[in-house]
């Protein structure tokens, strides 16, 4: 499924998540990771659900099976832009802040309030409440590209 080199990379990701270095990712590690990702106050139930998905305690092998696929790859700029354009058929290049909030917090893998705030802090809309999504996508994808050099 994965090449040796990839597995080693995932191993490092696992170690980074396993804060207390005991070889297992437990609910505290998960909660810390969520918190660091801006999702504070993740409900106990949600964490339990995730842990339940695993066949046993989350050691590295289980981690690989559960998260491996999600860690691979990066979406090209084009794809993300098209996703935003679904909500902007007139092609203005901007979206209303309230609309973006609605769109991302009420459906699919819902953003939490904190995550939403975090995004707007990093990429503030203008005074009129317009979010320049083209700029946002550009910065994130190009910022990342530089990292992967």
């Amino acid at each position, binding site marked *: 499924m994965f090449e040796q080199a990839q597995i080693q990379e995932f191993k*490092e990701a696992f170690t980074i998540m396993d804060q207390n270095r005991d070889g297992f990712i437990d609910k505290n590690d998960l909660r810390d990771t969520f918190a660091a990702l801006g999702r504070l106050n993740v409900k106990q139930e949600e964490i339990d659900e995730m842990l339940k998905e695993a066949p046993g305690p989350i050691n590295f092998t289980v981690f690989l099976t559960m998260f491996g696929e999600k860690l691979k790859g990066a979406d090209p700029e084009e794809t993300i832009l098209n996703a935003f354009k679904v909500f902007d058929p007139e092609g203005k290049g901007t979206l209303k802040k309230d609309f973006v909030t609605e769109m991302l917090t009420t459906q699919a893998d819902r953003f939490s309030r904190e995550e939403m705030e975090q995004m707007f802090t990093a990429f503030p809309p203008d005074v009129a409440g317009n979010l320049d999504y083209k700029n946002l996508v550009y910065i994130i994808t190009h910022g990342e590209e530089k990292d992967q050099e």
Partner: protein
Amino acid sequence: MGCGTSVAIENQGKPRGHSETAMKAAILIQRWYRRYIARLEMRRRYTWNIFQSIEYAGEQDQLQLSSFFSFMLDNFTQLNGNGPDLISHLLDSVVDPLTEEVRQTRYEQIVVPDSYTGPRLTFPLSVSDTNALLSAFKEQQTLHGKYVLQLLHETKKFLKQMPNVIYLSTSYAKEITICGDLHGSLDDLLLIFYKNGLPSDENPYIFNGDFVDRGKKSMEIIIILFAFLLLYPDHMHLNRGNHEDHIMNLRYGFTKEVMQKYKAHGRDILQLLQDVFSLLPVATVIDNKVLIVHGGISDNTDLDFLSSVERYRVKSALRLPKRSLDHLEVVSSRSSSRQGRVGLESPRSLGRSSRASRKRKSHLTRQASCSSSSSSSSSSSLCSPRLLSRNTSRNTLRNTAMNTPRNTPRKTPQHPPSPSLPSPTDMLQVPFLDSIMSLAPPEPSREEMEWRQIVDLLWSDPKCQNGCSPNTFRGGGCYFGPDVTQRLLQKHGFCLLIRSHECKQEGYELCHDGQVITIFSASNYYEEGSNRGAYIKIGPELVPRFFQYQVSRSTRKLTLHQRVSVAEGSALKALQEKLFAHRSELMAGFQQYDKNNTGRISTGEWATVVESVLKMDLPWRTLRPRLVRLAPDGNVEYESCFEAVSPGQSVPQVTPNLAETLYRYRTDLAIIFNIIDKDHSGQISIEEFRQTWKLFSSHLGVDVDDQAIDDMARSIDFNKDGSIDFNEFLEAFRVVHKLDVKEQQHG
């Protein structure tokens, strides 16, 4: 919450029928954005790991250096014709020949010139004095040496009356504020006072150690803290930290700061500080419920024993107590022609015979060994123990293992270094003339037990797993688990342990099921934006409240991405320097995998070599893109990991290997030179330089050509007067980062 039924959507004119596409698009965006944040978070975490690794590696280096000092003290009798006094003066505790009264008069007689515009303190202190100090320091003024000496003198007198453990109580309405490490960051202290008010009868404070080192304003911080201590003795409390230790100060910058700010009185100030630091209480207890210590506890921690300890005798955690040989059972393990006498020799002959036996490669080995050896027992061990023979001449057991690498600063205690004491089951093997003798180490003396109690309190860290093990990461104290905490708290009826000692992202962290709080008050400790600082307020109900802050140089707030990038850049630079400092070892390792000399090896091979040479437990594969270049075929061009850093200036007569070695030990050499340079002229004689360097390199097992050193020494003596400006010498072995140079050139 519903799904897209708000009025806002109507206004945007989105056709409702597209809901499936909309959902898919939303999912895509959510996942993509979360992955971005996750990557940022990963970078932040490994940046953190890098900084911590380097910090602890530095502490390990300090241990190595301390063992070298002991080695020098015992073996090197002639240094500038002053014998070991020179080094003893700074490393051993010196008994002040003058009485307190005489000292006090001397300080009073120091004349302060009229041109001095800073605060002039009068004792006993008043609020106007502390206010004057605060204003002066905000204006970047320095307090005159006279007042520093007087302040320290008064502080010493005051602290002498204090017990080892201070018991406090919260009266009905008062909250106590508890602050953690400050490490010379005056900005953080001023910010705390701004947010929380100055110390006073209504506003009690506890400062939990590590006031000095690293930051540039350590002197100002302790002046302020001691002034408030004298002004409000019942409402201001200071715990000792592991950096309130003159040997730590040699490495981490406080000694340097003092000598630079106080040219005339620096030495006296440092001498006084040694005493003051060792007189600081080691623990504080609130309402008999909350225990506050700087580092932590161990399974040996005994508060009752602790109250009887003579704390001022433990001047430094890195100077181990002398041990008595009176109870030794000496068993000769090898017969030799010289066998017969069982006693131990005087220092000179033992020194000589050890040197001789070193040449014959008969090592001093132990089952449990210390930082410069390669054996791997995990029981606690002694670094450079000192023994007294019946004749009370000084003998030394030296670990003279020659070609051993430094030990791994790992969290799991696989490797040994730890300045704690051998357990009774260890056998010590001593080279004696031609044979090796086995000695059962003596029972720990009272002095050792006292030393251990204090070091445990100042150096330990909590861990998640149960049990108590030597803290090999730092080289001192223990790792203590939740069971150890539970036991101690229960024994004394406490409910909480508050400690500091470890930098935390948010300024504070809870562990052991909320029974242990770490509080750290130096924001941006590793780098701008690396972490917040925090303090705790606790009232009679004993529920802690946390307050966070972050000092910022710029008024514009950095975004998360920018903060991560700045911190990461700094960490990566430090790593690049480490790679440079170990270039020859690394290249040797790389070439093992590259027999055909292609200049390339796989990522996995590269990571393996780097990890084994640097001995730092970091995610090397994740860091790879930032440290080294990939060839088109996907392999690593290993030489490219040295490209970012180059020597600052070329020094003639210095081979690249020698330059690398000197670069690696720059800090140690700086410390040593500063000690040798008694009168702080910045100059030492060529002879001193040569001898010191030879000793140091042989102690480390570094292979250096004598001739090369001689040549270098002569070439550095620019004015040919037989002395070297060692600051210039050390400057020559700095490195520059090429990107920085480019930026400077292009403005």
